């Protein structure tokens, strides 16, 4: 439940949509339209925030010792002399042509930067969600089946502690203990310094690239670096996923058909997994998708603590140095992911959940 790692937000609205009955094309168009509106709104809000920020982008570029003529030249070059709305429209036009502009602070195309930092976040979030699902779902099911038992209590405590822990603090302690004192894991960063750029970058995911290249030393090293931050993120999504699984399961287990099945003498295993669990799959996927979206949004604090060059720390750094092209580009990508995962889970509902029809 930490701010970035919050898994609760954006619960999909379950209100039945009459649009379901319309032709599929119309639905698709509408969806695309709403994505576009949301994205433009997102950009606009970010744009405005960037402009009212008391950081002068020109100063951010030229530094404190520049002469006035240097300053003026950059001011004009950035187009800051034009009205705000004109600047925004220019920006939108470029975005439509998939041009996110150049980062003001490192002179590279923003798209290139994002292509570099996003895989780092993707790798971390994916591993994190795998931890969360692999451990969280069975724990939730078990807690529901053995409601009130010690297992249920343990699951509850595990989840509550997860909700209550400041991740940046836990990260620091984890680094101190597992890296500093015990030396069990790799330190901050994605990979040890001698392993940087060793394997050709195909996907940008170091673990995958190393495996493709068959270079298991790199793989081992990268894994030793990712394991701690991924476990931390995994723990936070585990907390959420196990709680949600438990409550979904309880709902099913109290349903009439389960009682019937039990009366019929069906084994407990079959009752739990073949019937109850089968029925919560769609709900569960929604929860997991949202949890994943939140991890993908960039777990800013985790990335900062672990010097992880991901999109969260990229946006944050850019923001604090008034590099608005970078902030806008990053926000679009992150916003788009969130929206797409939301739509994906909505769709799942409509297609598979009989109650939504």
């Amino acid at each position, binding site marked *: 439940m930490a701010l970035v790692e919050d898994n609760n937000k954006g619960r999909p609205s379950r209100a039945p949509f009459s649009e379901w009955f319309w032709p599929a094309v119309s639905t698709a168009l509408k969806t695309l339209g709403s994505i576009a509106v949301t994205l433009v709104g997102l950009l606009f809000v970010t744009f405005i925030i960037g402009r009212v920020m008391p950081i002068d982008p020109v100063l951010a570029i*030229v530094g404190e010792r520049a002469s006035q003529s240097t300053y003026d030249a950059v001011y004009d070059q950035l187009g800051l002399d034009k009205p705000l709305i004109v600047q925004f429209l220019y920006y939108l036009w470029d975005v439509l042509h998939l041009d996110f502009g150049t980062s003001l602070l490192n002179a590279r195309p923003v798209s290139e930067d994002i292509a570099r930092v996003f895989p780092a976040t993707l790798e971390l979030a994916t591993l994190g969600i795998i931890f969360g699902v692999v451990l969280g779902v069975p724990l939730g099911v078990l807690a529901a089946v053995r409601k009130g038992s010690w297992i249920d209590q343990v699951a509850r405590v595990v989840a509550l502690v997860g909700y209550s822990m400041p991740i940046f603090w836990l990260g620091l302690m984890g680094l101190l203990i597992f*890296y500093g004192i015990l030396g069990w894991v790799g*330190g901050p960063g994605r990979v040890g*310094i*001698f392993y940087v750029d060793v394997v050709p970058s195909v996907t940008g995911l170091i673990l995958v690239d190393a495996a493709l290249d068959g270079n298991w*030393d790199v793989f081992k090293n990268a894994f030793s670096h990712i394991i701690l931050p991924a476990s931390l993120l995994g723990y936070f999504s585990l907390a959420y996923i196990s709680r949600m699984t438990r409550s979904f399961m309880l709902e099913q287990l109290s349903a009439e058909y389960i009682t019937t099945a039990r009366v019929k003498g069906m084994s407990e295993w079959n009752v739990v997994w073949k019937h109850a669990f089968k029925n919560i799959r769609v709900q569960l996927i929604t929860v997991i998708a949202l949890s994943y979206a939140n991890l993908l949004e960039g777990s800013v604090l985790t990335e900062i603590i672990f010097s992880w060059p991901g999109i969260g720390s990229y946006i944050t*750094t850019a923001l604090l140095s008034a590099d608005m092209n970078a902030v806008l580009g990053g926000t679009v990508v992150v916003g788009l992911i969130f929206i797409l995962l939301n739509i994906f889970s909505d769709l799942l509902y409509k297609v598979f959940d009989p109650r939504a029809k």
Partner: protein
Amino acid sequence: MNAFNRLLTGAAIGLAVSVTSFAAFAETPANMLVIAHRIDDVTTIDPAESFEFAGSDISRNVYSRLVNLDPMDLGAGYQPDLATSWDVSEDGKTITFTMREGVTFHSGNPVRAEDAAFSLQRAVILNKTPAFILAQFGFTPENAMETIRAEGNQLIITTDQRYATSFVLNCLTATIGGIVDKETVMANEVDGDMGNTWLKTNSAGSGPYKLDGWQPNESVTLSSNPDYYGGAPAMERVIVRHVIESASQRLLLERGDVDIARNLNPEDVAGASSADGVVISDELKGRLMYLALNQQHPELSKPEVRQAFKYLIDYEGMQNSFLNGQYTIHQNFLPATYLGASEDNPFTYDVEKARELLAAAGVENLEIEIGVREAQERIEIAQSFQNSAAQVGITVNITVGTAKQILERYRARELDVYLGAWGPDYPDPQTNAGTFAYNPDNSDEANATGLLAWRNSWDTGGLTEKVAAAVTEGDRDTRVQMYLDIQEEFRETSPFVVMFQQIEQSALRDNVTNWSTGQAVTSAAYWQVTK
């Protein structure tokens, strides 16, 4: 890049063979120097534009200059680099450099006088941030082609008036004096930018190292230039890895993952120095930590109040606690080791004295805002000052912001008090005298945001003229005395409370020798380092 990959793979495999677990002590390869450093300030590596610390480190190793400072003997001042000799004309306005023969750029192109002329012209015409270093000699984008020109093997520059030759040459040792490969740069020109866009992320120099890659906020990799005219450097690869946290840098160093950690805080220096195989190297840097009082403030502009603040700093207490080993008390605007720098530090922490001065000025219930950027030691200095000020009834509100936020308000003359740092731009006393004690037009309209005196609305009380006189004085001893006099007056009358001078503490593996971060006068050099 491929050769580099292979080499690294080789290193990695070698390492994997010798290392059985993650925790085991690793050692960097003998021909490779690995440095943990904060490099997030690098925004460009074009020598005509680069102006930040980490960027200057790259430039110093990639670009040779006309004259340069020897990392093994920085006290000797500027030495021949790409220029082997120079002559000054009778009127002192024209300097003729003779270029070194047989030197080539990394591209293989020969280094010619034409390249040198192009590099300086380019810096003046592009008019990026550091251009003022050259512009102060009267070079403008309009006259650059006439005042800077090549003739055969000679480069001839003509200044607008007589300046101390040492002043001109000192300025040419700065990053902006880097000589670029004209042919390569112009081949990459886009829209008449003189190759600026390309050079921001690529290099075209003739220095001891060439740039393999710069990943923003991740790493800088350099490989040695085997054809360097001064001999190929011992370290064939240099990797500078961006590591923010001091604790992380220390762990990497103690584990042998890096050879040098450059941003350890005092506690980690103390901790690391007791670790096996780690030594600490101290170098006095040029950066000063100071408080500035805005003279538009009705109370802060009273002479007694300015004086009182100089007694409200717990100089000793801070130097011996959280600044331990990294800052030393220094109360003059010229950093120690600079020509003419004063060593007098007359002010001590004296609350009683401050109270008397404030009473004499009739100041009561003063409440002021101090702007600080979010760097831990600065926030702590601010809090220590807040604590002292509270004892004489002054309420200090601390505003912390990013460097850029605070700077902007400072430049707009909005802050009551600014707590900041200032580092010299080139190794000549004018670099600081010309900003702390020089302010020809104190009006708001002048908008001389580059001058610290102007930012604090201080008319300098006559120091401006003295500074202007000192910079044209040809006699070295006379010049030194002039700066000593200026500093003495400045100490007593100025609204600046200069407090500390920085000491850079690098923690090194004990097999690293000849490490130099450039002391107060320049940046880090790698080519003389051996292991």
